[in-house]
């Protein structure tokens, strides 16, 4: 069985014909070549595949493309182009909060969602928000630092990183 779907990806309408078993992540990566959405475990554990679905982060490995029919998807490419996370990206860069970068897409998605719900999170709240995001490189500390620093900057505290 193949099903025709239409969804909005990074502001553009996309029409595709997919097998029902196609995950949203496979649609984004293989068909649309949006490879910033990473695939690790394909079972909801690692968080590398997060995308925004109707404004909230979800695992693209656990959402089927057919389930996203009619909905709005934003990937890291879209967030990047929008400039909405440029301050977060700069902090990640500045603090070495990424090494191989495999987890970074998911970290940025989780961080962005956290900061929009809770602009002044404690370090414990930041860690809690990242509980579903694995990083095998950094030891997390620099990631928490980068998110805390972004929260400070957005609240007008401290210097802006260029």
């Amino acid at each position: 069985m193949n099903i025709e779907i239409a969804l909005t990806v990074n502001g553009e309408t996309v029409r595709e014909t997919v097998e029902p078993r196609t995950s949203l992540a496979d649609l984004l990566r293989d068909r649309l070549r949006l490879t910033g959405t990473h695939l690790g475990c394909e079972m909801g554990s690692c968080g590398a595949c997060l995308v925004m679905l109707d404004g909230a982060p979800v695992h693209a490995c656990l959402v089927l493309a057919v389930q996203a029919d009619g909905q709005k998807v934003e990937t890291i490419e879209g967030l990047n182009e929008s400039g909405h996370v440029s301050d977060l990206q700069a902090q990640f860069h500045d603090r070495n909060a990424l090494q191989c970068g495999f987890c970074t897409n998911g970290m940025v998605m989780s961080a962005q969602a956290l900061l929009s719900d809770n602009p002044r999170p404690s370090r414990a709240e930041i860690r809690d928000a990242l509980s579903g995001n694995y990083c095998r490189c950094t030891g997390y500390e620099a990631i928490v630092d980068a998110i805390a620093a972004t929260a400070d900057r957005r609240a007008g505290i401290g210097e802006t990183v260029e």
Partner: protein
Amino acid sequence: MKSPKFDYVRAGSVADAMTAYAEADGDAVFVSGGHSVVPSLALRLQAPALMIDLSAIEALSGIDLRDGWLRIGAMTRHAQAMTDPLIATHAPLFAAAAPFVAHPAIRNRGTLGGSLAHADPASEFPAAALAMRAELEIASAQGIRRVPADDFFVDIYETAIEPGEVLQAIHVPCAVAGQMVAFDEIARRRGDYAMVGAAVQAVSAGEGLQDVSIAMFSVGNRPVRAASAQVALTGRALDAPAIAAAQAALADDLDPPDDPQFPASMRLHLARVLLGRVLAKLETAA
């Protein structure tokens, strides 16, 4: 891994969903949030011919008060349980349990109905439903029935929902004056399934605790009502001797299995420690 092939239909109504299931001769799976179904397909633990998506069915969504009960549609997402004001007031154990369920992104998709229907014995919401004495509204070809949580959870991944039936809503009796709740679990990492967990509800009245309801989870093949511990607390002031009596009584309520991770005796010990903590939280909430 990738899922095996299957067909897909988005059901417009509960009747459509049940018809599709019957027409597939039961070789079908319902999906709500999909966060248990989709991983199990990717791991090839099941290979149904048809997936029936329930998420667009209007009758399964919405949260409203009716005749002293809060009706929570089965499609209510975990994340909504953390923010909905009616749930906070009238089904507070769902709100208290939600932060312990998985991780933020999973809570954006996973549903209360899916969690209860899935009935993982280490899951938080089933225990919360049991402690709140919720009733589960199930649709079948014969009509709609309501099953009390005490009769709903049958075994590991097994409930009173028969194949092809749809869980439509969760009904929770509205909170009464003096009602206290507390929820906690012991897990190795934040967001993991619990090693042991407890959901407690009680009413503090002049003559001591009344309507004590204790559900323990991750202690056997389904969430377990701690009936002896409830009796040990009923009519008493919530003080240290009463809490100790409830902890001692747990031995009569629980018969946890030995498992590869740790022995039964350790699980019972953890359950007692946790019950003490949760009851102490009730105390401070009073």
